[in-house]
């Protein structure tokens, strides 16, 4: 983590109705975000289970964001 070039892999679960729409809008406005961020659209952030967060960590992400 002390590596200044470290770019974390972040998995974001984004609610279709707000956070995903916001990310979509950001794309439309040509606002860049780090390439280490990967987005999964979910029908509602309440849909995200603990097991899915753990699954992401098991497969090597550095952080998980639930946005909704």
């Amino acid at each position, binding site marked *: 983590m002390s590596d200044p070039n470290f770019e974390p892999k972040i998995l974001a679960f984004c609610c279709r109705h707000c956070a995903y729409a916001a990310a979509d809008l950001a794309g439309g406005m040509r606002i860049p975000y780090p390439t280490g961020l990967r987005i999964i659209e979910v029908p509602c952030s309440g849909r995200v*289970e*603990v*097991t899915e967060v*753990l*699954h992401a*960590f*098991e497969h090597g992400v550095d952080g998980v964001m639930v946005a909704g």
Partner: protein
Amino acid sequence: MIVGEQKTLDEIMGLLGDAHKVLVAGCGTCVTVSFAGGEKEVGILASQLRMRSKLEGHPMEVDEVTVQRQCEWEYIDPLAPRLGEYDVILSLACGIGVQAMNERFPDSITLPGVNTVFLGMPVEQGIWEERCQACGDCILGLTAGICPIARCSKQLLNGPCGGSQNGVCEVNPDIPCAWQLIWERAVKLGREEWLLEIQPPKDWSKSRDGGPRKIVRDDLRLADME
């Protein structure tokens, strides 16, 4: 229902020792509804075990399975063909399920991942309370439907005692005095006479004092098993 509580990850890791291949086995009945050992908890614990063991430098292979009831042969027998490949089975069932697995599969080691705590019920989301001690001689008909064996700290048959203060037990202010509850309910029902008779000492031979208990129902037994 039987209410259980999952052991800490540290304790479970200690129990598993140097096992390389582990099957986490959940139960779909009581421990599922007490959120201690159902399919979801199996998935979470298995994931934790995989990550923890990897971080500690001896990665475990952890598989998951959940059966409807671990305390009945019919539900656990289908597991038999695959058990040989595991060093250890970590059961998230109650103590009955753990013993059923060990009894049915004597060549496999089944360890407990859950502490079986009591017979009770959820009184609100996230809170379970003890309601029954399976004493084998139900007296709820004498005590306004509230059990002093499970809910009075002294298991008094003729209460309350002097330790009842403002409706709570002297043992812990979080424990309502069972005999206060019994009295209030009897008054509300207009049945104070239920409590006027002094109850003799309880026959504890029907409880654990008589040793492990057993029920035999000949009307339910199959002819070829008699």
